[in-house]
Each structure stands twice: as C-alpha cells, then as structure tokens.
C-alpha cells in the first residue's frame, strides 16, 4: 500500500464515469450564472465549501470505518434533490466496479452486495481509499478536489473556455481546498464517536434547484 494509490484514485482517467457529470456547471452555464473564468472560480468556491465539504467528510468517515449504511443515509439527508441523489448513486455504482477491480477487498464486496443500486459516491470513494490503504485525509482531498475539478473541465467544454484559465481557477482554490480537507477529517473523527449526525451539512440552494431543472431537459451534454 502506498500514497501513490491516491494518484490512481484521483486521476481523471480512473474509469469511474465522472467525466459524464458537470457537478451543476451545465445548468449554471445555461442560466447565465457562469460566463467565464471568474464565474467558474466563484461557482467552484461555493461548491467546494458546500457539496465538497460534505463529500469529503463522508469519504473520510468511510475510511475511518463508520458504518457505510449510516453514511449513505446521512448522504441522502444532505441531498434533497432526487436528481442529485440518483446521480450520486449511479456514480457510486460505477466507482464501486472500478474500485473492486483495482483494489479487491471483502469489505467492498459486502457493500456492493448491500447496495446493488449503488451507495452515494463519496461513501464508495472513502471505502475505495480504505481498500487502497489510504488515509482519511487522502480521501478527503480526493473528494474535495473532485467537487471542483469536474465543473472546471465541464466548463471548458461548455463555454470553450481556455483550459489554462480553468486550471488557474483550480490552482487559486488550493489553499481553501487544504482547509476543507482538514475540516472534513476533523468532522469525520467526531462522527466516529458521535455518529454521522455530527457530519457537516453545508448546502447550496441553487445547486439543488438547478439540478432538478437540468434533469428535466430533453437534451443535455452532461448527466448532472
């Protein structure tokens, strides 16, 4: 087991289907709320401190061995939009397939059997990190980074944004990403003693509302 497993797990080419999702960027572009690099950065910053923090804490808690069933319920309660719950489970199912092939483990097998339709992606991400011998902080970084890298690469495609500008926005978020990953691990450690109710529940109203509108579009480039 090595730290380099984190690079495998966090690689955009890890075959877990994330590229098909924009993390709400497609809906925000269509609504005119993201029109360039500045809007993208602001979108990503908001997503990082809400969905990103919650996902990172769920993933870190899964690495620490908090019951996946309880974490999955906590993820449901923190995701009012049924479109986003469905997307999270679909991504979780795809990630589970890739993770079981990459880091075979009895624990992953058991969770895959318990959730045939998929557990929430951040929970599976944490279990995959655990199977790969990674630390809670590694999983938190991975989840927090995914919460912003997905919208960034999607916006490059949606707006024909200069990829250098999108990458620059991600780089400027790095110090906040560090803080979010630390906060997430702290919360996850609390959840070991106090249960998943103590996990963060930061929410972004427009991500939830726009996800429902997006799911009803007849034609879209991204699944969510």
């Amino acid at each position, binding site marked *: 087991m090595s730290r380099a497993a984190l690079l495998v797990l966090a690689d955009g080419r890890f075959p877990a289907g994330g590229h098909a999702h924009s993390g709400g960027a497609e809906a925000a572009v269509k609504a005119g709320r*993201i029109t360039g690099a500045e809007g993208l950065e602001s979108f*990503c910053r908001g997503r990082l401190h809400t969905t990103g923090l919650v996902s990172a804490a769920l993933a870190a808690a899964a690495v620490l061995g908090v019951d996946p069933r309880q974490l999955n319920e906590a993820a449901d309660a923190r995701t009012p939009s049924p479109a986003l719950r469905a997307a999270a489970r679909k991504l979780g199912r795809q990630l589970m397939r890739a993770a079981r092939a990459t880091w075979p483990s009895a624990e992953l097998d058991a969770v895959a059997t318990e959730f045939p339709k998929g557990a929430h992606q951040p929970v599976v991400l944490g279990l995959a990190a655990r199977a790969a011998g990674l630390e809670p902080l590694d999983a938190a970084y991975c989840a927090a980074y995914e919460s912003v890298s997905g919208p960034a690469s999607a916006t490059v495609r949606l707006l024909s944004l200069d990829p250098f500008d999108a990458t620059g926005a991600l780089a400027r978020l790095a110090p906040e990403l560090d803080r979010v990953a630390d906060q997430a691990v702290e919360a996850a450690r609390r959840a070991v003693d106090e249960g998943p109710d103590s996990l963060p529940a930061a929410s972004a109203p427009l991500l939830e509302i726009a996800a429902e509108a997006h799911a009803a579009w007849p034609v879209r480039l991204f699944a969510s």
Partner: protein
Amino acid sequence: MDGVTAAVAGVRATARMVARDDGRGGTALPVLESDGPLALRRTRGSGAEPRVMLVGAMSGPLGGDHFTVAADVREGARLRVGSAAATIALPGQTKGEARYDVRLTVADGGELHWLPEQLICAGGSDLYVGTRIDLGATARLVLREEQVLGRVGEEPGRLTSRLVLRVAGRTVLDQELACGPGAPGGWDGPAVLAGHRAVGQLLVVRPEFADEPVPARVLGEGAAVMPLAGPAALVTAVAPDALLLRRLLDAALAALVP
C-alpha cells in the same frame, strides 16, 4: 468566553408550548410559557386546531442572545403557530454570535403547522439558527422558513441556519446554509445564492408520502419541489426579495397541501 464578559452577556430566553388531545375531539394547550422577549399568545382558531402567535416583545436576537422556542405536539393533537412580525437579527453590544433554537416534536397522529414570518439578518448581525424537528412515524408537519439577507439596500449580516428533520428516529433531512460576511467563500456565487437576497424552505411531512412520494417539480427559475428519502417533501426557493419568495412558497404550499 471568560468571566469578565459575563456582565454584558446577552439575553437567554425559552418559550414553550405543549398541545395535547383534550379527549373531546379538540386540542388543549396545557403549557403556553412566554419568556422575556418571546411572548406566546393564543389567538382565534378552531377548538380542533388552536392557533398560537409568537410575539416579539423586544427587538432581537442581538449578538450574545440565546433564544429557544419549543413546541411539543402530543399524540393526536393539532397546532398552528405563526408570528406577529418578522424577526430581525441585529448586531449586539457584545461581538458574539446570537443563537436561536427551534425544537419541534410531533407525536404519532399529531399535526403541526409552523409558519412564522421572515427572519431578517440586518447588517452587522451574526446569528446561528438551529431548527430540530422530531416526528413520530404518523405525525404530520408543514413548516416554512424564510431568510432575508439584509434590510432593503443594506449589506446582509452573517447567518448560519441548520434544519434537521427526523422521522421515527431516522434523519430524513439535514441542511445548513451559511451566508453573509465571514461565511465560507462562494456563498453569494453561482452555486449557492447568486445574488439572491431571500431564501426559503417549505417542508411538508405526511405519512402517505412514504408510499406515494410527491413528484419532483421545478417552480420557475428559483424553486423546486423535491421528494426526500422519507415521507417528506422539501421546497427550496431563492428570490430577489421577501415578497417574491413568499409568493413562490405560497404557490408551492397551495399545490402540496390542498
């Protein structure tokens, strides 16, 4: 917090109400306790569904204050609670955060309508609102929360508002919104509020939603009806101002609770 600042500590107040089935097809209010700035008044309403009005007897909450309002609706009882005016969070003499806790419990067969006026976060205020709702498996609830960020033309204060719903011991909804100066970055950006100054939630819980969930639906640009993972539906709405927000939530309420 140290002993030196205790002299200027804020107001602590807890108002409580209990509604119970009176055994004659109506609801009695054996407990209706006002406290300091939180005054409870029974207003006209039917015997089956008494109405209580929360009247702010002084301004606040101010920095350092800690208010709690608790309602306990016992088995088979019904209660409707409103407020006489908007609550305005203001900066206090102490720099500290103010805290407003709402604790609602509804036992099996009980029904609570919790429909207060808006919470307005005036410039310079710093408030944490914690709303915890515990429902029995067959309890019913209609709850509205509206947050207005700043008075007209004013920078908002800081607000953190957490809403937790448990039904039969299981957490069905847990959402926290943080906004205003000092909140984590991006709160006013395109993912969270995008310049909207009014945000609200309407939560409807009915046992029959377990088998027949409300269909998900978008209400214009700024609101959506969302069936939760449990016998409940949430309407989340954002709007430029309090009036437009209320219109969105009223329309959603009329559609969800005919």
